C-alpha cells in the first residue's frame, strides 16, 4: 500500500485533536459532577440543619403546615425540573412520620443514622442527609433525586460538548487545509522536478526549500551531480573513442590510397609500412578501450589472490616481441616474489602491462626498461623505470586524468594506459605514483598493491 504523508498527517492530527477533546470532555464531566455533588450535598446538609433548627422554635408547626399545603406552589411546579427537587421528612424517634414535604415518599428516605446516605425508593435514587434533633426527639431527612443531579451534569455537558461537536467538521477542514498548506513545498518540489527536461541536470535550488527538505534536496542534488558527471564522462569517452578509432582508420585509408595511386615503389613501400604500424596501433587502442571497460565494469572485483611474481612474468613475456622490435631490453628483478596481492589477476595484469608497454614505447632504441618487485609490510610494489624522456612537471599533474595525453605522446597513442592503470589501482585499493627518475632521465612508475589478507 502506498503511504501518503498527507493522509497520515491528517489522521494523526484528527486523532490527537479528538483525543484532546475527549479528555477535555471527560475532565469537564468529572469536574462538573464533583462540583455539583459538592454544592448540592452542602445544600442538602444546610437544608436539613435549617429544618432541624427551625423545629426548635414554636413557629415550626405553623410554618411546616404552610409549606405542606398542596395548593401553595401549583403554578411553578410544572415550569422547571429544578424546582421541587428537595424532599424533606421529619420522623419521630419512634419511627413515626411526623411531617413530610410535598411529593416526598412515605417511606424513610434514609435507613442509616445521621449523615449522607443513598437509597433507592420505587426506582428513584435519593441522596439524603439525615440529622437528629434530640431536643425535639425527631430525625430530619432532606433528600434530592440523584436523577436530577444527573440531569444537571448532563445539561452542563451538553452545553459544552454540543458546540465542540458542531466545530469538529470545521476543525477537520482547517486541519486539512493546514496539512495541505504545510506540505505545499513538497508539491512544489515535485512539480519542479516533474517539469524538468530530461537533460537538465542542474542542481535543485536549495535556498528556497524548507530545512526539512534539505536532506532530500541535497540527496537529489548529489544524485544529479553523479548522473551529470557520468554523462560528461560518457560524452568524453564517446568523443575520445570516436577520435581514437576513426583517426587511425583515416590514416589507414589515406595510406592505402597513396599506395594504390603511387607509381613510385619507395612511396608505396613507405605507405604499406605505415598501414602495418597503423593496424598495430589501432589494435592496441581497441585492446585498451576493452581494458578500460573491464577496469570500469561494475560488479565485485574477484579477489582471486594473484601471485605478483607470475603476473609480472606473464606481462613481460607477452611484451617481449614489442620490446624486441623496438630494440629495448626489459630487465626483471624480484619476480620470484610470490606474495599474493589483493587484486584480480586479470586487472593487475592489465595495469602492469599498460605501464610496461608505455615504458617500452618511450624508451629509445637500445635502452632498458627495469621492472622491480619489492615487498614491504602489507604491500607489494612494482616499480617500472624507463630510459625515456620522463615527463614535464606540468604533465605529471594531469596524469591519470582520463584521456589526457602528454604533449609529445603522439609517437605512441594516448595516455589511456595510465588512466587504465590508475582505475585498476584505485579499484583494488592500491596506488599509482609517477616520478621522474632521480638517477638520470626517464620515468619511474610505482604500482603499490595491497597484499592479500589470506
Amino acid at each position: 500500500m502506498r503511504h501518503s504523508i498527507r493522509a497520515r498527517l491528517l489522521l494523526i492530527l484528527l486523532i490527537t485533536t479528538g483525543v484532546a477533546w475527549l479528555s477535555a470532555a471527560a475532565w469537564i464531566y468529572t469536574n462538573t459532577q464533583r462540583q455539583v455533588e459538592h454544592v448540592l450535598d452542602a445544600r442538602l446538609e444546610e437544608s436539613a440543619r435549617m429544618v432541624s433548627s427551625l423545629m426548635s422554635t414554636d413557629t415550626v408547626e405553623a410554618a411546616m403546615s404552610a409549606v405542606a399545603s398542596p395548593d401553595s406552589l401549583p403554578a411553578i411546579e410544572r415550569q422547571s425540573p429544578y424546582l421541587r427537587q428537595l424532599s424533606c421528612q421529619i420522623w419521630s424517634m419512634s419511627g413515626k412520620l411526623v411531617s413530610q414535604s410535598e411529593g416526598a415518599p412515605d417511606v424513610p428516605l434514609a435507613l442509616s443514622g445521621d449523615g449522607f446516605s443513598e437509597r433507592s425508593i420505587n426506582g428513584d435514587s435519593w441522596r439524603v442527609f439525615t440529622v437528629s434533633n434530640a431536643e425535639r426527639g425527631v430525625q430530619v431527612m432532606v433528600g434530592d433525586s440523584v436523577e436530577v443531579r444527573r440531569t444537571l451534569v448532563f445539561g452542563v455537558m451538553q452545553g459544552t460538548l454540543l458546540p465542540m461537536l458542531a466545530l469538529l467538521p470545521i476543525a477537520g477542514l482547517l486541519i486539512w487545509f493546514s496539512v495541505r498548506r504545510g506540505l505545499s513545498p513538497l508539491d512544489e518540489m515535485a512539480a519542479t522536478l516533474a517539469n524538468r527536461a530530461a537533460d537538465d541536470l542542474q542542481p535543485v535550488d536549495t535556498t528556497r526549500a524548507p530545512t526539512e527538505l534539505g536532506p532530500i534536496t541535497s540527496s537529489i542534488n548529489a544524485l544529479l551531480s553523479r548522473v551529470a558527471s557520468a554523462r560528461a564522462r560518457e560524452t568524453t569517452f564517446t568523443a575520445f573513442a570516436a577520435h581514437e578509432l576513426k583517426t587511425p582508420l583515416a590514416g589507414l585509408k589515406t595510406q592505402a590510397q597513396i599506395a594504390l595511386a603511387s607509381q613510385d615503389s619507395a612511396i608505396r613501400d613507405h605507405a604499406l609500412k605505415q598501414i602495418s604500424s597503423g593496424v598495430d596501433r589501432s589494435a592496441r587502442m581497441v585492446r585498451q578501450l576493452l581494458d578500460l571497460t573491464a577496469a570500469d565494469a561494475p560488479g565485485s572485483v574477484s579477489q582471486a589472490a594473484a601471485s605478483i611474481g607470475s603476473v609480472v612474468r606473464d606481462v613481460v613475456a607477452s611484451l617481449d616481441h614489442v620490446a624486441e622490435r623496438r630494440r629495448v631490453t626489459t630487465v626483471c628483478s624480484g619476480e620470484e616474489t610470490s606474495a599474493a596481492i589483493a587484486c584480480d589477476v586479470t586487472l593487475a595484469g592489465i595495469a602492469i602491462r599498460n605501464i610496461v608497454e608505455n615504458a617500452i614505447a618511450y624508451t629509445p632504441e637500445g635502452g632498458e626498461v627495469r621492472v622491480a618487485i619489492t615487498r614491504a609490510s602489507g604491500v607489494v610494489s612494482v616499480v617500472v623505470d624507463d630510459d625515456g624522456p620522463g615527463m614535464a612537471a606540468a604533465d605529471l599533474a594531469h596524469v591519470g586524468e582520463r584521456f589526457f595525453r602528454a604533449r609529445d605522446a603522439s609517437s605512441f597513442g594516448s595516455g589511456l594506459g595510465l588512466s587504465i592503470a590508475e582505475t585498476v589501482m584505485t579499484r583494488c585499493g592500491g596506488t599509482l605514483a609517477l616520478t621522474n627518475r632521480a638517477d638520470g632521465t626517464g620515468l619511474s612508475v610505482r604500482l603499490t598493491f595491497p597484499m592479500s589478507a589470506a
Partner: protein
Amino acid sequence: MRILIVEDDPVLRDGLQVGLQLSGLQPDAVSNCADAELALLANDFSAVVLDIMLPDGSGLDVLRAMRDRQDQTPVLLLTARDDIADRIAGLDQGADDYLGKPFDLDELAARLRALLRRGAGRATPVLAWRNITLDPATLEVRCAGAVLALTRREFSLLHYLMERPGQVCAKRAIEEALYGWQEGVESNTVEVHIHHLRAKLGSGVIETVRGLGYRLGSEP
C-alpha cells in the same frame, strides 16, 4: 602552395603529408596546438588542415586564435566527431570547410584546391595566362594545347607565378612557398627551376626583375 597539417596521429599525418605532396602541394606537419601556433606565426601558409582533437587542446582554439589576429588563411577542419552540431560549431568559428574522418584523400585534395582558389579570389579551377593553362587538379600544364612534362617543383613554381600574374615575386617568397621546413634549400635552386621552366615554356614567359625577383612576362 604551402599547407600546414595539424594532426597528432603519426600514420595519418604521414599519409596527409605524402598524399598532399602527390597532389602538388607543399605540406608541413605539426602534431599539437602549440607547434601549430608557432608555425602559423612564423610562416605564411596558403591553407591549414586542422584536426580538432589534439593532445594539448582543441584545434578550434587554434582556429579562434587565428581569426582573432585577423589571419584569413583558409582552414579545413578534420574531425572524428562529425555530427551536425559539431560541424556548425566549427564552421561558425571561422573554418572554411569540414571533413569527417575517415575521409577520401582525393576529396581532401579537391576541397583544399577549392579553398585555395577561393582564397586567391578565383572561381575558375584552371589557371590561364596567354596560351598557357595550368590545372591544379590534374597537375597538367598545357602550352598552346600541348601537354608539358614538368617536375613537381617546376609545376609549383609556375602555379605560384600564375596565381599572381604581373606581380613581382621575391625569390625568398617563392622558396618559402616551394619548400617545407624539412627540405634544405640550395641557394640557387629557384634559379635552376626557372631556368628549366624557361626552356620548356619559351624564354619570354618568366621575366627576371633584377634585385627583386621574378614575374610572368608583362608584354605579350
